């Protein structure tokens, strides 16, 4: 269907949720106020690794105004995990603490002051244990074991081996092996984490918290609290960003629920900025060693990659986080023979999760090494990427068919817009230009929770309510659903009501974390809307004395095609249907076509996601060699998002991605540590861009119209953040003639690299490589 024929789809309409946000009316979790609500505070471990010998809460319980105190003793001590084989975390510690910040006890009291007073009266006796704070130390033979069931502190071991890598290396005219290191990056969503839990006398509990899937949180809480799933109601709430850091269940909500159940009152826990950094999630620090072999023209024939991921104290979504950095790049670039060993390693530090810029040492490593190879062969960076770029109709190394792919178009358009090759040939002093390419999945195999369903009900006045499990983290999913419904139902956008992300009412949905909200959730709503439309047409056909197939729905009216004067208002059809005893109730569902037998560890092959988005980003910078300061001049991002349901919203994702992955991610974002203590948990010392730092951004939306996506749409949320990181890295490198391999590229690192620059095509620094590890079994 051509864009011009749409009323709402493909248009840059203002978002339906914007008004309540500009007035301050939108309710975030910390804004909730319920009668008799208590304040909850959590007591955390001050040590990175210790046995808990005793927890004495007797004095805390006696403080006037304290209504509940909980410790590990109030739980069954069971270990929780996202996967059956990653069950390693007691959501309230019972026997051990494993990082500075691990949850040990909690208090609910009438106000914050009382809660803190009670917290101070809880006495915990610890027996300190030796701790490890980085991957190499954690896997050393004498390293202390953080979890008894995971030898050598190896939490996850992903092994992928496709083709014949060793034989293919023999055919290469050039082979490089380089190691790339990235420190932890962190989400720093503007809203600090918070939970409100309200238990009821019927044994049910309502919970509000930022999340990337209310159904995932509800199921986990149901298991952990030993309550039936139907009694755990996770409610809709305005969410201040997620970026991958609010997906799986946290001790915070488990503890808040316990406090509410025990006190029989609503309890609110609001995290400080410091707690948001330490006690939710952060990104993985990574060491990635990449060995790549190419033919004379720079086509990759073989690749062998080993990654160490610093996972922190618990698994979280470990198997996914360990795999996705590799999977994104096996999608982006052709590599017939490839081996990947990904090791997620426990350390005594806060827990790491999936983050929008997945595995920046991996991503930047692949793209920077391509530049190095191009340099050695005398090819330019654009040509080498075109020669290796994913093409539509390809199959990825692990067996995914690629239905739509505009990567080549994205590379060509960004190169053209930025005048890449001529700037490369005629560089201004201290100016550089660099490119990065990305590909991101739209949904993975998630078993019974991999699909999305939706219902649509009509009101007597012809308005409609869409009921969907899709969650909005701020990226605009609510608006996306409303725009789709408005288009299909012929109603003005303002007349679409939305009930979403409430597990008591809304049907299941896969969650926003696998970039599937538009592809899956949007398709489900579209299907439900078409179903509702067909029901309307069956009724209207009688009223208009026409065939249902002759009818169209536009501007609140059902028309006969070609006779705009021969129509009946929607509300009349709705009322007629009610009289007939056949009320209009639309239903739809969508499950992506993925290989459900695919598993991250035991079977990492088969269709990973029904489709993939692709893109390229080019960054131009100016570097001051005296100070190491980088000024980003201009960024051009082209992304094949399939189809832009709302171009203004899609651009917003590009721009936000560039700020987070590039401007922030590559120039200043890292966590710094001292023996497991986080030195920069807040915005004061974790440097992120302000409005003054941002360069000019050119957004190019490429539309390949995916055969499976709603109106052809795929995703646009994660991808540009990744390739922006790569592009910034390569641009700075180009400006200085240095290949950087330690991120982020702070002024200190840049100056150090300039000062110690050695001749030849080499990385700026040498690091101990990540090596294949002997493990007892393939499955950890």
């Amino acid at each position, binding site marked *: 269907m051509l864009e011009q024929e749409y009323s709402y789809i493909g248009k840059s309409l*203002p978002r339906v949720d914007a008004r309540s946000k500009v007035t301050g009316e939108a309710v975030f979790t910390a804004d909730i106020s319920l009668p008799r609500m208590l304040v909850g505070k959590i007591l955390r471990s001050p040590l990175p690794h210790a046995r808990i010998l005793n927890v004495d809460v007797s004095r805390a319980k006696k403080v006037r105004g304290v209504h509940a105190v909980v410790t590990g003793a109030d739980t069954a001590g069971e270990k929780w995990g996202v996967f059956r084989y990653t069950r390693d975390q007691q959501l309230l510690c019972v026997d051990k603490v494993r990082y500075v910040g691990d949850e040990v006890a909690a208090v609910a009291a009438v106000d914050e002051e009382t809660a803190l007073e009670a917290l101070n009266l809880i006495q915990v006796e610890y027996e300190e244990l030796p701790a490890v704070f980085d991957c190499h130390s954690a896997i050393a033979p004498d390293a202390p074991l953080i979890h008894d069931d995971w030898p050598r502190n190896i939490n996850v071991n992903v092994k992928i081996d496709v083709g014949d890598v060793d034989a293919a290396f023999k055919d290469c005219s050039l082979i490089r092996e380089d190691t790339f290191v990235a420190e932890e990056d962190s*989400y720093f969503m503007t809203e*600090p984490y918070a939970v409100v839990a309200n238990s009821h006398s019927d044994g049910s509990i309502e919970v509000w918290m930022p999340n990337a899937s209310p159904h995932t949180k509800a199921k986990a809480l149901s298991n952990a609290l030993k309550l039936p799933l139907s009694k755990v109601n996770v409610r809709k709430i305005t969410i201040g960003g997620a970026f991958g850091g609010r997906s799986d269940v946290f001790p915070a909500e488990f503890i808040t629920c316990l406090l509410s159940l025990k006190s029989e009152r609503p309890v609110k826990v609001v995290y400080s900025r410091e707690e948001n950094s330490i006690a939710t999630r952060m990104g993985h620090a990574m060491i990635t060693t990449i060995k790549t072999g190419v033919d004379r023209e720079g086509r990759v024939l073989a690749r062998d990659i080993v990654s160490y991921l610093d996972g922190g104290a618990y698994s979280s979504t470990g198997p996914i986080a360990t795999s996705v950095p590799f999977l994104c790049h096996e999608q982006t670039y052709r590599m017939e023979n490839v081996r990947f060993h990904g090791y997620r390693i426990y350390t005594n530090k806060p827990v790491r999760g999936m983050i929008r810029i997945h595995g920046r040492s991996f991503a930047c490593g692949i793209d920077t090494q391509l530049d190095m190879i191009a340099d050695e062969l005398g090819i330019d960076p654009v040509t080498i990427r075109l020669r290796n770029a994913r093409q539509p109709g390809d199959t990825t190394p692990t067996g995914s068919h690629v239905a739509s792919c505009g990567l080549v178009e994205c590379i060509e358009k960004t190169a053209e817009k930025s005048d890449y090759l001529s700037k490369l040939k005629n560089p201004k002093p201290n100016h550089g230009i660099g490119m990065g390419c990305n590909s991101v999945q739209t949904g993975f195999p998630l078993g019974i929770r991999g699909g999305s369903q939706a219902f649509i009900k009509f009101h007597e006045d012809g308005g409609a309510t869409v009921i969907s499990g899709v969650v909005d983290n*701020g990226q605009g999913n609510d608006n996306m659903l409303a725009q789709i419904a408005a288009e299909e139902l012929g109603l003005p956008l303002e007349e679409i009501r939305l009930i979403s992300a409430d597990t008591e009412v809304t049907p299941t949905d896969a969650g926003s974390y696998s970039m599937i909200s538009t592809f899956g959730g949007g398709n489900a709503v579209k299907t439900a809307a078409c179903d509702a439309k067909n029901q309307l047409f069956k009724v209207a056909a009688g009223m208009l004395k026409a065939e249902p197939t002759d009818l169209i729905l536009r501007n609140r009216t059902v028309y006969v095609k070609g006779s705009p004067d021969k129509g009946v208002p929607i509300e009349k059809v709705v009322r007629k249907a009610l009289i007939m005893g056949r009320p209009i109730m639309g239903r739809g569902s969508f499950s992506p076509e993925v290989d459900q037998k695919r598993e991250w560890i035991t079977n990492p092959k088969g269709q990973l996601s029904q489709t993939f988005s692709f893109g390229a980003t080019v960054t131009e910078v100016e570097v001051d060699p005296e100070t190491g300061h980088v000024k980003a001049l201009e960024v051009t991002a082209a992304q094949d998002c399939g189809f832009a349901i709302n171009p203004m919203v899609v651009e917003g994702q590009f721009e936000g991605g560039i700020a987070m992955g590039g401007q922030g991610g590559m120039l200043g974002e890292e966590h710094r540590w001292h023996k497991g203590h986080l030195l920069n948990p807040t915005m004061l010392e974790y440097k992120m861009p302000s409005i003054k730092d941002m360069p000019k951004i050119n957004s190019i939306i490429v539309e390949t119209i995916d055969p499976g996506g709603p109106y052809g749409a795929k995703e646009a949320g994660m991808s540009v953040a990744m390739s922006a990181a790569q592009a910034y890295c390569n641009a700075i490198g180009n400006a200085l003639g240095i290949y950087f391999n330690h991120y982020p590229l702070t002024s200190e690192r840049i100056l150090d690299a300039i000062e110690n620059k050695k001749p030849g095509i080499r990385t700026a620094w040498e690091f101990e490589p990540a090596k294949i590890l002997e493990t007892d079994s393939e499955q950890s």
Partner: protein
Amino acid sequence: MTVNGDPVDVAAPPSATLLEVLRDELGLYGVKEGCSEGVCGACTVLMDGQPVRSCITLALEAEGATITTIEGIARDGALHPVQEAFIANGAVQCGFCTPGMILSAKSLLDRNNNPTDDEIKTALAGNFCRCTGYTKILKAVREVSGQTKPSQTD
């Protein structure tokens, strides 16, 4: 003090911040707490027309002052032009930074109704946003200031 045009008397301990009083005593939850150390700007309110960080302003300092929060800038059911521009230009994603950002912008435009890009950026430099990359925020503020073209290559 006067809050959004209404005279208000609040009893609060000496250590109470203006943020706590506005949210917990007066129910003005549009004022957000993002960092509690005066860095992110989510708590920005206007005190006698000037943007202040309410999380590090003692409530006592607001004695006798005129306070404007996000709840107070619409007039007779009509949104303020900055609010309208934010909606129209896609300058709102998750919305958590939005109240503070809008107040900083409004305060600038009240003092200088034709700011350059640099002046806009300086006025908003203390408001952190993680979602938008600031591009459409800048565009929205430019639009309200009557600029039809950027005042320099942006």
